[in-house]
């Protein structure tokens, strides 16, 4: 379009009222603006937009220019100074509601590869637009935050400290920018509180929006974040900083942490659906809150210290349950850490048996056992075992008694069962020494526990190699108890002997079967070796036929040397078991 023609159009626009502008005008304006931007004539465009006489035009049609401008800035093909200046100007002049719509749409359409850059650019402008909205901004702020968080949740969360420092995908930058973004609104709520105790509805709404934002941030990205892979606190971690600030916002908006953590109605359905749990405070978010508070000790200084440790454990157990149920390293690690911290404050031997009736107290140990057995990540397996033991220490006698039986019944894993049997032995030992014995690991109570635990559930068909841990630990326990009791004239001696005899009777059958089987296996393996050696000798004489035949004969995928080792090992174990059996028989006969 010729320059003078354009001048005419602009002159006409200057005098036309906003409502008289036609769609064609809008289109033309956008075309001209778009071309300017595409050609890099942004200086010219800036001058036009800043021109006093053009303010009417800009106000009514300028919004449309944002899209190409933002694209240009994010694209980074040129120096963005002018584009940014234009955006800033538009954001101050155009109608706030239109601006917000455009900016949020731009955010949703962000190029997947440039999410961080786009939203960081947009955030400052959205903040400005919101501040222009005055008292009615709460709703719009909510919209903006939801949109921002949705985009941020698409960014991968750094796994290691190094990744966090590199911040390749920009999540950490976004989190930091997000904090700057909400700061003025937090301040507004805060200053309202100090000004007067009267809360306006806008204030209330802002509070609700901010609370929702905090809860959402706890869920994403904080639940995924590894906050203490390396306990190096000197290095500044943006994610940790984000967590700290989120907790600070919660206290700034006067949301008491105990209420969120402990007094939040967990099951809305019980109340006939009157107050159903809304999705804005998902339990996962509160689980993360518990983790930050009790494990990372963020905001611990403002948390009441007077809660009883058992109550805290009871409440946290729900969260631990949720954290452990998800097969995700960062979740499980958080769950285990929270479990440890919640248990540490509880006194040994103090958890009552009734607690085990609560559902999470049943399900958490079950999940823990699963992690110990199945989890592919070693440090989690190890940690799970440590927590499992710690939990046992905290149970009182009666609770231990019940817990041991329950795990023996449900775990079906020789390793776990051996841990329990070892614990029974320790308890029996402990109860004879300590002054305040509660009697659960002596006398008839002990005998009844042994009846349930010292057994071979599959009878003579038990796979001794597979169940080795359990068998060895059972024998150890029996030997220990028999030696302990033989000098005393207690009533349980006969019972103990009976248990030992029944157990050993079946075990002996197992042992003889297993030994003969493995013995034959080993023999045949040796035979084969001999044959092979012979063949090899013969072959090496002929040399023409290679090792073909040898390969065909190798068994079970395992090289014969390894097979040999396994079989030998098994036989040694059986010998060991047998020697223990003999010892036990000796002790029982000595006294009689």
């Amino acid at each position, binding site marked *: 379009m010729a320059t003078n023609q354009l001048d005419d159009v602009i002159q006409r626009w200057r005098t036309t009222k906003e409502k008289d502008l036609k769609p064609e005008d809008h289109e033309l304006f956008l075309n001209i603006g778009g071309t300017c931007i595409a050609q890099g004539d942004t200086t010219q465009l800036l001058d036009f937009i800043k021109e006093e006489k053009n303010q009417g035009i800009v106000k009514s049609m300028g919004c449309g220019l944002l899209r190409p401008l933002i694209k240009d800035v994010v694209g980074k093909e040129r120096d963005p100074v002018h584009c940014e200046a234009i955006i800033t100007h538009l954001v101050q002049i155009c109608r706030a509601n239109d601006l917000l719509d455009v900016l949020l749409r731009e955010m949703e359409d962000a190029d997947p590869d440039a999410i961080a850059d786009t939203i960081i650019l947009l955030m400052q402008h959205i903040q400005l637009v919101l501040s222009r909205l005055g008292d009615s901004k709460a709703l719009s702020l909510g919209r903006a935050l939801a949109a921002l968080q949705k985009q941020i949740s698409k960014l991968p969360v750094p796994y290691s400290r190094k990744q966090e420092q590199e911040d390749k995908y920009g999540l950490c930058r976004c989190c930091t920018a997000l904090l700057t973004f909400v700061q003025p609104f937090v301040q507004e709520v805060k200053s309202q509180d100090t000004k007067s*105790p009267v809360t306006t509805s806008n204030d209330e709404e802002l509070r609700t929006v901010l609370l929702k934002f905090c809860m959402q941030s706890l869920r994403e990205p904080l639940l995924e974040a590894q906050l203490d892979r390396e306990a190096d606190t000197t290095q500044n971690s943006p994610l940790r900083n984000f967590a700290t600030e989120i907790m600070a916002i919660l206290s700034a908006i006067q949301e008491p942490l105990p209420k969120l953590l402990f007094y939040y109605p967990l099951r809305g*359905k019980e109340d006939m*659906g009157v107050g159903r749990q809304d999705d804005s405070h998902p339990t996962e978010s509160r689980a993360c809150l518990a983790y930050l508070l009790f494990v990372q000790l963020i905001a611990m200084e403002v948390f*009441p*210290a*007077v809660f009883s440790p058992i109550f805290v454990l009871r409440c946290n157990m729900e969260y631990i349950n949720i954290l452990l149920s998800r097969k995700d390293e960062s979740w499980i690690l958080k769950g285990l850490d929270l479990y440890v911290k919640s248990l540490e404050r509880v006194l040994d031997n103090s958890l009552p048996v009734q607690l085990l009736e609560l*559902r999470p107290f049943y399900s958490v140990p079950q999940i823990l056992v699963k992690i110990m057995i199945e989890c592919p990540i070693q440090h989690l397996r190890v940690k799970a075992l440590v927590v499992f033991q710690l939990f046992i220490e905290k149970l009182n006698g009666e609770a231990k008694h019940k817990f041991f039986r329950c795990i023996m019944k449900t775990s079906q894993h020789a390793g776990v069962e051996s841990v329990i049997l070892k614990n029974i032995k320790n308890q029996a030992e402990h109860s004879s020494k300590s002054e305040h014995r509660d009697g659960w690991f002596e006398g008839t109570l002990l005998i009844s526990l042994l009846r349930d635990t010292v057994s071979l559930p599959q009878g003579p068909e038990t796979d001794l190699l597979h169940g080795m841990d359990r068998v060895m630990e059972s024998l150890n326990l029996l030997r220990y108890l028999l030696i302990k009791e033989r000098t005393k004239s207690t009533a349980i001696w006969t019972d103990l002997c009976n248990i030992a005899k029944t157990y050993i009777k079946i075990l002996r059958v197992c042992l003889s079967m297993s030994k003969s089987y493995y013995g034959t296996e080993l023999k045949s393996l040796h035979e084969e070796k001999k044959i092979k050696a012979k063949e090899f000798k013969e072959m090496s004489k002929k040399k023409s036929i290679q090792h073909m035949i040898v390969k065909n004969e190798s068994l079970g995928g395992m090289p014969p040397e390894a097979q040999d080792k396994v079989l030998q090992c098994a036989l040694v174990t059986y010998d060991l078991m047998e020697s223990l059996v003999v010892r036990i028989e000796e002790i029982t006969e000595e006294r009689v």
Partner: protein
Amino acid sequence: MLHSPPVRLAEVTCGYTEKQMRGPGKTREILGTRACVSAEMATFEDESSTSQSPVDLFNSQGIDITPNKDRGVCKIVKRHGKEGERPMIGDKVHVHYTGRLLNGKKFDSSFDRKEPFVLNVGKGQVIKALDIGVCSMQKGEVCLLLCKPEYAYGSAGSPPKVPTNSTLLFEVELLNFRGEELTEDGGILRRIKVKGEGYNNPNEGATVHVHLEGRCGGRLFEARDITFVVGESEDMGVPLGVDRAMEKMQKGECCLLYLKPKYGYGKEGKPEYDIGPNAELLYEVTLKDFEKAKESWEMDLNEKLEKAVLVKQKGTQYFKSGRYYHAVIQYQRIVSWLEMECGVGKEQQQAIQALLLVAHLNLALCYLRLREYSQTVENCNKVVELDSQNEKALYRRGEARLLRNEFTLALMDFRQVLQVNPSNRAARCRIAVCQRKIREHHERDKKIYANMFQRFAEHDAKVGRLKRKKEESGLVDQNNKAVKKSRTKSQDGS
């Protein structure tokens, strides 16, 4: 119609004044009577530093308040409270406290958080000393508590602030207490007389053995031993409130339940006990024993399906007799059992779908009768998710939306009903209603906003004048009134 704007504005102003009045009250609660408390603390610290160690002070003046009299918690009252009731177990209690070590070092204080500490007392939520201490107090009382470690953090301590085996000193002010609300609407208030054992509660469908004593306005109207199934108390003539409380009780517990009419005998009353309509009731309930019903996770799918059919019948029976709350409980059980099930094979899947559909559809109807429209809409949405052409669900959702004054949405629902079934005459009528309401609404809006700008202008002018006056006189109070009056007047004029 002409009057509506002034009325609305008047309401707004009223709300405002009320809030203002509540304001200072709230502040007082937040701050407690801090002046008093800190003064007390100061004198106490003086005493301790100059003459006596706190332990000596408690030895001479403290009262042992532990149940087994082992001097684990000793108390000195610094300011007496109002004579009268003390908190009962489970009561929701507001306190302010400051906790110190014996060397005077503060480790925790509710004042630092600028809000009172809230707890359900006597339930082991806090360290033993506070539970015992608060239970012994009266409203407004301020006291000092000296607590041995066994009643505080014991050998574990509370790192990092409280070392192991610390004796602690608390200063506590009891601000307020009331019974525990068992429902969100506050319709059931519980106060526990005797604490039950353990942590196990009856669940929905459990069989409970209880002793009941019902009072109305101080008059005992029933006292009996009874066995009923939780969720089906109606069959034995036990009011809903008692039924709902069961899930929060433990074996051996004896409690008082304050029931609002909704959870008692409602609008109809109970002539056989000589109870009129809308009466509030007080029940004393002892849970002697109970047998739990199987939880959802303890049942396999087939068992759930079998039971769901029975529960559905039960729900329908309640619905027919107008017991909508009771019906809701039953239908809700079906949802909670089957919501997360997917089933194997077509047959099972269909069975689950069908039951869920009926449950949600009936829940929608119950809530419609109970005037809980958002719940109605929610349940209809669930049905529409399962079957987008469900005529009943669409119609019920339309009804609920119409009653919530969401005319446009309602209109859309009823139009969809007609698409599914063009011969649905009721829907046709409803569409007409919707359209009429939308028209009326438009007109009212027009009238309200018609002279808005003029009114604002007048208002601004008046406020301006008043401001000047205020600056002259400085009497805030009168001005406020004047503003209100003038505002109302200007509206009347329009």
